């Protein structure tokens, strides 16, 4: 009897093990992960005209009702359905990295371009080469290096509009205080004084969401690139460090001076990004360092206030530059069974028709990343008009954290320390140089 029970229990154990292994696995077999989509998948991908629609899985950071609308509209146009998984914004990168490591990426990837896609998602081994797609020719030349690899392969194409890093300002607050857009750091202080006198918070900072504190330095680094050509290449080969980036350092020291002079909201250490967007759109604050993707959020939450806000780059005297955040990529993992359907989706998104749907639904998205896309000027929102104007007058550089040889990590907490008087911009530059050197060495980057 006991032998029977034992046999039964061992069978149960084996069954449990098999079940557990099945749960822990993923849909992609080793062969499917390294093989281009099969004929079978292309058959299903071509089912736009059949009764059963292909469902494309997609994972994206942060909730956005507008995004869901335009994505589904494009899905309808190409005859696919979208299963959108919304990831917590602050954990999006980690989740994507783990999904890449475990071959569990969704059919349609949305991730940071350039080195981040290449390294974090192990693009060479995990993503499909899209270089045969005709839309590659339409990507704006300035941002093409972030999508086309040196060997000509393409692991992702722009999946959004261009966004910039700089300062959002409230026009009504500026008018009330009688000030105009500052063109230098001295003017930034002068404008702040007048805004303060008008009862406004001159510069809003939201240190609770510490990533927002990184923006001024990243925006100012463009001036280092403009005035010290080649500095980024030198940093990437260990011939220079962030200690050589004078404008990067100055930006953080400027923020500290603004705090010391009472130009920053008193609750800056507990203020959040949402608080900042509310303050700038309602005109309680005059200026707020942001990425221009903030305007889409303002449009989602307070559409009647969107034209009260505008944008200008980090102000440094002389020739102007602006830091671009190249749009997140659309990519396809090798493990996707719906690769052909996803390609059709991407192709349509990048077409004039797809871009029209995108910009009609999300008019504050920014500047088109594809050539030949004509925006209806009569419908342009004020902040977008200013963004377009900036691109005509300022030289564009992509943000340094997408361009460095290895991950330099988040440094918002160190900026908090600067604002609290514990450290200086130079200390931050030294720390970042050290972190970058260690990470580059661990990665085996030449020169480190």
């Amino acid at each position: 009897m006991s032998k029977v029970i034992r046999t039964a229990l061992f069978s149960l154990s084996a069954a449990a093990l098999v079940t557990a292994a099945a749960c822990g696995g993923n849909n992609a077999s080793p062969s499917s992960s390294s093989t281009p989509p099969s004929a079978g998948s292309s058959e299903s991908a071509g089912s736009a005209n059949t009764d059963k629609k292909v469902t494309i899985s997609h994972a994206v950071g942060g909730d956005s009702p507008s995004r869901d609308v335009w994505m589904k509209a494009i899905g309808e146009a190409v005859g696919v359905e979208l299963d959108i998984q919304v990831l917590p914004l602050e954990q999006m990168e980690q989740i994507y990295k783990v999904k890449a490591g475990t071959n569990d990426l969704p059919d349609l990837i949305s991730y940071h371009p350039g080195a981040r896609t290449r390294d974090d998602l192990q693009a060479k081994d995990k993503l499909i080469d899209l270089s045969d797609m005709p839309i590659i020719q339409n990507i704006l030349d300035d941002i093409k290096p972030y999508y086309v690899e040196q060997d000509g392969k393409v692991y992702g194409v722009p999946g959004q509009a261009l966004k910039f890093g700089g300062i959002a300002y409230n026009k009504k607050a500026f008018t009330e205080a009688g000030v105009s857009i500052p063109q230098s750091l001295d003017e930034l202080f002068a404008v702040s004084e007048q805004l303060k006198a008008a009862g406004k918070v001159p510069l809003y900072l939201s240190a609770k969401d510490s990533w927002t504190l990184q923006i001024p330095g990243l925006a100012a680094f463009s001036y280092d690139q403009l005035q010290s050509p080649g500095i980024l290449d030198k940093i990437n080969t260990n011939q220079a460090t962030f200690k050589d980036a004078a404008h990067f350092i100055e930006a953080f020291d400027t923020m500290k001076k603004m705090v010391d002079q009472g130009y920053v909201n008193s609750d800056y250490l507990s203020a959040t990004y949402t608080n900042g967007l509310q303050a700038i759109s309602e005109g309680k604050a005059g200026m707020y360092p942001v990425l221009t993707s903030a305007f889409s959020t303002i449009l989602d939450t307070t559409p009647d206030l969107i034209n009260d806000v505008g944008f200008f780059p980090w102000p440094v005297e002389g020739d102007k530059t602006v830091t671009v955040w190249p749009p997140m990529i659309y990519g396809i993992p090798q493990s996707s069974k719906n690769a052909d359907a996803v390609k059709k989706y991407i192709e349509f998104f990048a077409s004039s028709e797809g871009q029209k749907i995108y910009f009609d639904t999300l008019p504050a998205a920014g500047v088109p990343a594809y050539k030949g896309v004509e925006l209806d000027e009569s419908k342009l929102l004020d902040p977008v008009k200013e963004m377009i104007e900036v691109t005509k007058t300022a030289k564009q550089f992509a943000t340094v954290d997408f361009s460095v040889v290895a991950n330099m990590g988040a440094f918002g907490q160190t900026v908090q320390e600067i604002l609290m008087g514990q450290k200086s911009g130079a200390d931050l530059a030294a720390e970042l140089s050290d972190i970058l050197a260690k990470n580059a060495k661990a990665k085996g980057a030449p020169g480190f």
Partner: protein
Amino acid sequence: MHKLERKTYSISFAIPWLLIYGIFFVLPTLFSFYYAFTDWDLTSAKFSGFSNFVEMFNNPVFSTALANTAIFTILSIILKVAVSLALAMALYHCVASNFFRTIFFSPYVLSYIAIGVLFTAIMHPEIGVLNKALRAIGLDFLALNWLIEKGQVIYSLVFIDVWKSAGFHLAIFIAALQTIPSDMMESASIDGAGPWKKFRYITFPMLASAFNANVIFALIVGLTKFDLVFVTTGGGPGYYSEVLKTLVYKQFAMGRYGLATAGELIIFVIVITLTVTMRKFLDKREVEV
């Protein structure tokens, strides 16, 4: 005549779950011993000797995180045990004891994420309910920058953790209190023992096992605290509330998986060492009591 034997369940009943435990916990833990000595990018691991440990110990934030973890752990152990013991004594003979037990236990069923968001709002220096209430009753001097002042933030986090977990420790103490024979208390009363003497010489010694269990629970939770800190302060302002777990998470987020695993291994060794030492000390004290 059947031979008298003790009937026990066969160990084979545990095999399915031991297998799952082995595959999903023991094996990854053992693998981590190897990965801690590599530069690992999830697809390949290059052996790097002790460099991850050297880098972790040389990280200027490591000592801050270690000190914060120590403060958090020690204070939370003392306060959780003291508060829950006091509540247990007060509630044991209380008329509406079940009602109050439910009240005190209820924070424990909330997730740390919800509690973190809740207390971020409550402890906001300007618009938070706590400071508004303090100002309303004239205690302006107590309206502090709870979560953003470098000297206070770690203590605020301890307070939140104690508020959440006291009910759990209370339940353990109350369960132990219910095992104390009532005749022992009655005879002590007849012999003229007052409440303090009854507590000192009967209740407290009889609670020794529960006391030890609570200390060990609080020790492990304190040393491995992550969620509350991550949601409430993210380790800030600056690094004034950084703890070991949040520091390790940041290495993971940077893509330094080998370095993060080395950090986890350091925490693992600290937890095992302190838990075993504390256990031995408490067991010895229990025998003496």
